[in-house]
Every structure is written in C-alpha cells, then in structure tokens.
C-alpha cells in the first residue's frame, strides 16, 4: 500500500478508497479475533460486513473507529492512519453502536447539541443541521422529549441522526437494525440511502440479516476472523452457481424424455413429483422450456440462489447454526486490587 499521509491530508476530497485495511490482525490474549483481513471501501459505497455472532465484525468496527488498537496490520480511514492520527480519523467518522450510547437523562435535542459541540460544529450551522437530521429520521416533533421515554426504534433513529449531524465522511453502523420491527427496519434503510444520496457518505455496516445485506453495494462475508468472500451480492450469488428451475407436469415421464432430447447439455433431476434443472440464465431459459415441453405444466418455479446459499457454500454451515460461537466472558464482579492499582492487569475496556 502506498499511501502518503501528508499528501492526503491536503486533498482528502480526492481519495476514492476511504477505508483501506491490509492484513489486519487482532488478538485478545490467546484468542485470535481477526486473522489478517484485507479489504478496501470506495467513497460513497455501502459496504456490508456479514457474519455470525463473534465472527469479528464489531472488533473490525472498533479498530476502524480507533476504539481498539490493532495487533498488527495497516488501517487507513479517510486517508489517515488509525495509529498515528486517531484524532483525524475520529473527526471523519460517525458511529452507531450495537448498544445505545445516548444520554438518557437529556432530551433528543440536547443529545444532538452535546454531540455537535464535541465535534466542533459551528453553532449557527447546528440549528439548521439539527432540523435536517431530525426531519430525516422523523423525530422533529419529539425533539423536546427525554430520551428515557423513547422506544427502541426511536432511540436507534436518534442515534443515526446524531451520527449524521457532523457530516461524517464515513458512517459506521454496527448492526443498525437488530431488535427492531420490520417497518422500522425498512425506514432505517431509507435513511441510510438518503444520507448517502445527499452527502455522498460512505456507509460501512455490519449485519447478520442476509436479506439486509442484499441492500449493500458490496459484501464481505466474515467467519472466525477471516474474510471468506468479498463481492457484490449479485456476483456472490452467481459464484455459487446457477438458477434453479423446478416444475411439475401432468406426464412427468414424457416431459423428461422430451427434455433430454432437446437439451442434452442440461442435467435433469427427479425429486419426488418435481423435475429440477440448474441453468445459467433462468429467466431466459424459462420461456424456452415452457414451449419445448408438450405435457401440460401444473406448476413451475424459478429460484435464484440466496445469500443464505452463499453463506452455506463459503462457510459450510448456515448463518444461524452456531450460537455457540458467542463466547461470553464472565467478568469479575469486583476486584479490590484493581480499584487501587495504577496498572490494572486486565484492561478490558474493549470487548469483542
């Protein structure tokens, strides 16, 4: 990687790759959370990190946002090295964590105010931006409410608007829709798309919902601290193979015979009462197939491989299979020596 920090500082507008990660590793004691991952994210892209719990998604976000130090590897965010210029990295990013980080004592407006001040947003601009982000996330009417009275979905929306108020170059979303109802989920995706459209914000998000990952421009599938696949959702699906057509006819045997005569290049499988074929371009082949077969077709189904199939293919299991990966570490309740010592032994400020 040939990134010259000094040049990029002057012309951060010109960079096309806003996140660059090269051979990033992170160990927690003996546990290898990240085993050398590399990827880059282009400006204005929605980049998804897909993987089961404990795969290393949150660890990656924490390293990119300077909350955790990498064990080794190079990480550049908006052209700044996270190790040498964490201040500039922090200024260029907005974050929405998995857990809420709002100040529940205060009102929605005050939360935005604190945030804007922390990021040095000028006071005059603040009022305008406040209106903009609150209207975007449909919280303008509730701006004077205390956050403790907010529902889970409202809190999440407020967090997204808060993360947008300083106009970050990159918005990190750690499982932005987890635990929300489908309606709110769709809305949150709307906000994400609007934010990208207006400000060309790059969006980096993690998710364990496969259907949501389809909204991303590109996806990296991460498993056990390694990236096992990285491409656009379409290409990933193409990678595992062809479309599947299954159909039923009044006379399956005749249909089978006809099919084998006319399309010897395709394999035909008989599964129960259904006939199943795998073809490259299912949507084009479907009309040809219907015309070619003389028995009456009762039902016909064209299925595209889903990301679930992709995940199955690259990791060897389904995404929901392994709850066991969730290694929950029991923390010590109280350690007196830790209270007094200047050098606490286990600095667990950063959890996976």
């Amino acid at each position, binding site marked *: 990687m040939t990134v010259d920090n000094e040049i990029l500082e002057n012309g951060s507008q010109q960079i096309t790759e806003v996140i660059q990660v090269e051979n990033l590793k992170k160990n927690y004691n003996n546990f290898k959370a990240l085993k050398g991952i590399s990827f880059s994210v282009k400006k204005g892209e929605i980049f998804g990190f897909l993987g089961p719990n404990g795969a290393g998604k949150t660890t990656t976000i924490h390293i990119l*946002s*300077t*909350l955790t*130090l990498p064990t080794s590897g190079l990480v550049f965010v908006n052209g700044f090295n996270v*190790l*040498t*210029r*964490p*201040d*500039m990295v*922090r*200024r260029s*990013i907005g*974050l929405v*964590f998995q*857990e*809420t*980080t*709002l*100040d*529940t*004592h*205060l009102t929605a407006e*005050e939360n935005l105010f*604190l*945030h804007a*001040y*922390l*990021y*040095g947003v000028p006071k005059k601009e603040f009022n305008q931006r406040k209106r903009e982000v609150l209207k975007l996330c449909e919280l303008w009417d509730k701006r004077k409410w205390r956050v403790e009275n907010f529902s889970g979905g409202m809190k999440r929306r407020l967090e997204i608007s808060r993360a947008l108020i300083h106009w970050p170059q990159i918005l990190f979303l750690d499982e932005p829709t987890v635990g929300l109802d489908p309606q709110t989920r769709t809305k949150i995706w709307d906000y994400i798309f609007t934010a990208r459209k207006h400000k060309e914000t790059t969006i980096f998000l993690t998710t364990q919902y496969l259907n949501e990952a389809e909204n991303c421009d590109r996806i990296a599938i991460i498993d056990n601290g390694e990236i096992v696949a990285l491409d656009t959702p379409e290409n990933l699906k193409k990678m595992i193979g062809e479309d599947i057509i299954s159909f039923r006819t009044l006379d399956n045997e005749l249909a089978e015979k006809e099919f084998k005569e006319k399309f010897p290049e395709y394999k035909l499988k008989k599964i129960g009462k259904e006939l199943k074929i795998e073809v490259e371009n299912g949507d084009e082949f479907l009309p040809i197939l219907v015309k070619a077969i003389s028995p009456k077709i009762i039902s016909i189904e064209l299925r595209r491989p889903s990301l679930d199939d992709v995940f199955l293919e690259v990791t060897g299991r389904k995404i929901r299979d392994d709850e066991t990966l969730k290694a929950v570490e029991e*923390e*010590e*309740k*109280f350690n*007196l020596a*830790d*209270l*007094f*010592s*200047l050098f*606490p032994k286990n*600095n*667990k*400020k950063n959890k996976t």
Partner: protein
Amino acid sequence: MEDSNSLKHYPLNVRLKSLYIIWYRELLIYWRNRIKVFTSIFLPLLLVLFFGTGFKALFPTTLLPYDFSQFFYPGILSLSTVVMAMSSTLSIVWDREFGFLREILVSPVPRSNIVLGKIFGATTVATIQGALLLLAAPYLSLELGFIDFIKIIIFLFIFNAGVSALGVFFASGIKKTESFSVFLQIVIAPMSFLSGAFFPLNNLPLWVKNLAHLNPFCYGADGLRWLILSPSLEKEKILLFTLHSLKSSILFLIIFDFIIFTLAIYRFKR
C-alpha cells in the same frame, strides 16, 4: 489508546469547547435531577438540626465549651459536598455501563479533556451545593460576611477538585455499577468517619490521628471550620476540635489536587 504527543493535534479553541461541553453536561444533569438537589440539601440540614440539638442536650456547656451544632455544621457541610462531587464523578461508571462514555470516547476530544471537564463539572456542582448549605449559617448564630463567603467558596472549590479527581481515579477502575456499594464501604465510609466531621479527633489514639493526617477529607473539614467559625468563635475553642491549621489545610489540599489530577488523567487514559 492515544499516543502521548497527540495533544498537539488539537487546537486550543477545540479543547476549550470540549472542556466546556462536558462541564455543561454535568451541570445540566444536576439541574435536571431536582429531587436529588433537594434531598442533598435537606438531609445535611436535618442532620445538623437533630444531631446538633440532641448532642447539645447530652453535653452541657460546662463539659463542652462550644455549641455542638456549631462544631457539627462545617463538618457536615464538607461531607455533603464530598458526596455530591463523588456521585457526579462516579457517574462515569454509569456512563460506561449505559454506553454514553463510548460516545465521548470516539469523539475527537482528547482524553485528558474528558477527565478535566468531568472533574470541573463535579467540582462546580459540589461548590453550588456547599454555597446553598452555607445559607443556613445565620440560623446557627454564625455571622459570615461577604468576604468570608467568597473565601469559603474558593476553599470548597480547591477541596472538591481533589475529591472529584479522586472519584475519577476510582471510577476508572470500577467496571460495574454493582461494585459501587463495596467501594463506598471500603473507601468512602472510613475516610468520612476519619474526617473529624462527626466527632473531634483531637483526643483519639495516635494511630487514628496519623491516619487523619493523610486524609484529605479531614483537611477539608478542618479548613472549613476555621473559615466558617472564626468570625464567631475564639481561636482557642476552634483549636479544641481541629487537627490542622487553615494554612496547612490549604497547602495540603493544593498539593493533593496536583497529585490526584495527574493520577486520574493517567489512569483514565488507559
């Protein structure tokens, strides 16, 4: 987490602004919690009133050459500001558990400023608390002029800055809110009992006095006694229930402030 020379990246006005906003949040939360404001004033007054009159009846003036509630009042005042400063800074633990601390940690604000903003916020809140309690002085037939009042406020500020920094220092080591009660029992309770706020330490065994010489709370209580009582009481009487002079109290507290500020910032950065 943050390399030592990174402070140079932050322009001064950004640093001041962030200091201000963290200080402001502390005051905002204090102001929001009206019930806490009320009880934090009500309880000390109740203590002075009931304990004061109760003990006054127990020890007749022939045994005790001073009014017990006059002895009691400055001590309780100092302790109630301590409670205020501590509860404000220990809210770091609360912030950590509920996530808001992370919002501050990922913002482009130097870590040392987070600590300083928190400490000064807590100190301001504690000083306001002390000032409010001072309004009760005339009812205990203690005369205080305007200059005395200002002096007391300045002293309270110096004292509580150290206490708040102590709070940050300990809060950085507490990971869970459940650990609070243990911390209060092991650290705060002994320090409060040995501060001389509840009883004079002068006639106690030497080892207790030696411990008291290391206890910042004790210097706080003694300093406040000199400042609050000297306009109304003779010096000889005050000497009966203080261990340290006003000058040595101020000197000790300033040195203590410097040390504990450094330690608190250092420990929080980790």
